[in-house]
């Protein structure tokens, strides 16, 4: 264990996390606004924008995992339990909604929304398990 483990890990996390969030917001907002200006919307550009939106999300998940690995042991436990609960709640939601759709109880729901659901479940879980400082 090195001195300042927690603080340096948190610094490294914020140094990458916030630029990724800015890139994400710019690509999503700018991309959807830009596409509307084109008629018809070129499919290759739609695909490119979709992948460009995914890249910062994947980057964010990797940065969150790196933070969990680099931070102090208690925060790591809280983060990993947050990941676990986020995953459990999201997979449960996928199965529940999936079966409700298979048995024609509900209409189609965009699969996209399970992504934000994971982040919300992860955030709430870390808050409940470890308190504000660990989330």
């Amino acid at each position, binding site marked *: *264990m090195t001195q300042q*483990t927690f*603080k340096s890990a948190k610094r490294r996390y914020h140094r990458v996390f916030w630029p990724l969030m800015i890139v994400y917001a710019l690509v999503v907002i700018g991309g959807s606004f830009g596409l509307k200006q084109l008629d018809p919307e070129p499919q290759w550009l739609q695909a490119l924008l979709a992948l460009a939106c995914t890249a910062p999300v994947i980057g964010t998940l990797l940065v969150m995992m790196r933070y969990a690995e680099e931070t*102090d*042991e*208690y*925060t790591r436990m809280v983060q990993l339990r947050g990941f676990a609960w986020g995953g459990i709640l999201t997979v449960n939601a996928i199965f529940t909604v999936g079966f409700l759709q298979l048995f024609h109880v509900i209409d189609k729901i965009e699969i996209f929304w399970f992504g934000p659901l994971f982040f919300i479940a992860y955030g709430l879980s870390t808050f409940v398990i*470890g308190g504000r400082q*660990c989330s």
Partner: protein
Amino acid sequence: MLVKNIIRTLRAERGWSQAALADQLGVSRQSVNAIETGKYDPSLPLAFAIARLFEKSIEEIFDDETEAQLAAQ
């Protein structure tokens, strides 16, 4: 198994805040609070770091309740 400790007392004797102790150990203030309140048992390396900082042995700081109960029986 629950491990009790006297970190809060030792910290108070030195007039350190939880944040000050956390800084010296390289952990979060939340970690110190969780250890003090018994919500979290530290790993062996962290327990050694705490013992070194307070210039005491691990046994002087951490008390294994199970062992104490067994000894009393």
